[in-house]
């Protein structure tokens, strides 16, 4: 009997709730010890027993742990969607910057209101992420410092990503101020003249930013996924405060999602008003590297829609879990 072929099938015999909790570690165990047909029979009986436990209403623990997993996934999905929104937001600022839309906003109140709404939405979303994510971040950092080497390595990813961005920006600053001179790169770019050297520098900056955002999001996602703690006690000025970290983050996650939806609507409105007033700008090439304005704007919209939908999907998934009380501590 080829055990490596039987293994996934054996694990799939267990109830979904059981698999959500134990499948990963159980699979590792089967890789190591599944050797004889007797072991296969043993696993089969274990699966039958797990189903019986569910039928008997036993093992509420799995259900609760499953709820915790769902709630954690919700928070992570909203966080990842927010990072995607930040990338889209910076792209939008890059598109509007130095374009005729900026002077137009000074004279068009509706356009200005749409832009202000985007800025307010961005501020509210950031504030909600910081407030909701603070206990979670402190817990993950505390766990990492307490000896979780893998967690420590993961948390270094955002730190190094940020350092890489700062170093790159410092390099751009030195070039822009003339302290470093590179052949083919001009200090000040004139409209209609974007030398290949400057284009390369800008591409590098975007690459560092986007790769850093993706790597940091993945690392933080992984670090949080490995944190099974449902609540954490914090001490400050002689007082202790116990926070159910995922439940605490749920309301800020809802606020972040709503802010993203508001920003999406405001961006569509801003784009529509800009297009109505300055169709020639949208038909032109005001995107980065002199690329099509329309293509960039629609790219930004698509990213925003995908992120907002992901956040909404995450909330829908986590809402039933949010209503469950007294998740077990692990």
């Amino acid at each position, binding site marked *: 009997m080829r055990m490596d072929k039987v293994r996934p099938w054996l694990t799939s015999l267990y109830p979904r709730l059981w698999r959500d909790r134990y499948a*990963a570690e159980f699979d590792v165990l089967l890789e190591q010890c599944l050797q004889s047909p007797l072991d296969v029979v043993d696993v089969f*009986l274990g699966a039958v027993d797990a189903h019986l436990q569910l039928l008997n209403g*036993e093992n509420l623990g799995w259900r609760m742990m499953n709820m915790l997993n769902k709630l954690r996934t919700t928070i992570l999905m909203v966080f990842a969607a927010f990072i995607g929104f930040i990338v889209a937001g910076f792209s939008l600022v890059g598109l509007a910057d130095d374009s005729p839309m900026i002077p137009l906003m000074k004279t068009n109140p509706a356009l200005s209101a749409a832009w202000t709404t985007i800025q307010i939405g961005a501020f509210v979303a950031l504030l909600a992420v910081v407030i909701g994510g603070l206990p979670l971040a402190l817990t993950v950092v505390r766990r990492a410092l307490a000896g979780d080497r893998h967690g420590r390595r993961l948390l270094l990813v955002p730190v190094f990503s940020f350092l890489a961005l700062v170093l790159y920006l410092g390099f751009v600053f030195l070039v822009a101020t003339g302290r470093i001179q590179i052949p083919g790169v001009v200090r000040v770019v004139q409209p209609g003249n974007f030398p290949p050297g400057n284009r390369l520098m800008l591409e590098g900056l975007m690459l560092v930013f986007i790769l850093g955002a993706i790597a940091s999001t993945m690392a933080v996602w992984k670090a949080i996924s490995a944190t099974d703690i449902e609540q954490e006690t914090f001490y400050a000025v002689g007082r202790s405060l116990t926070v159910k970290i995922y439940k605490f983050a749920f309301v800020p996650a809802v606020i972040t999602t709503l802010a993203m939806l508001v920003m999406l609507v405001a961006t569509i409105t801003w784009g529509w008003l800009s297009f109505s007033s300055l169709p020639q700008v949208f038909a032109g090439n005001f995107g980065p590297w002199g690329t099509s304005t329309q293509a960039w704007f629609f790219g930004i919209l698509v990213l925003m829609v995908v992120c907002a939908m992901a956040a909404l999907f995450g909330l829908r998934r986590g809402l039933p879990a949010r209503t469950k009380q007294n998740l077990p501590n692990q």
Partner: protein
Amino acid sequence: MDTSDFGRFSDPALLILASLAGGEKHGYAMMEDIEAMTGVHLGPGTLYGALSRLEQSGMIQALPADERRRPYQLTTRGTAFLRQYLASLKKFVYMGLMRLGA
């Protein structure tokens, strides 16, 4: 809580508790330890059937996963339960041996 609460997993549950009394272990390490300690080979299905019940009853707790393997450790409750059970077993063994005149 007594061992009958663990159904057909009563003995495996005790073996797991005894194994974890020697320190935190993941599934495969527990299987090897139990085999070395008692000569009993626990199948993977039996091991995880007992593990899930022990975890639910608060006797053991999962630690953060190390790569894909997840270690477990005894809780205070599990330690107290094992100590009490082994003490009663010791008394029983002593009485049995006394009656046999050993």
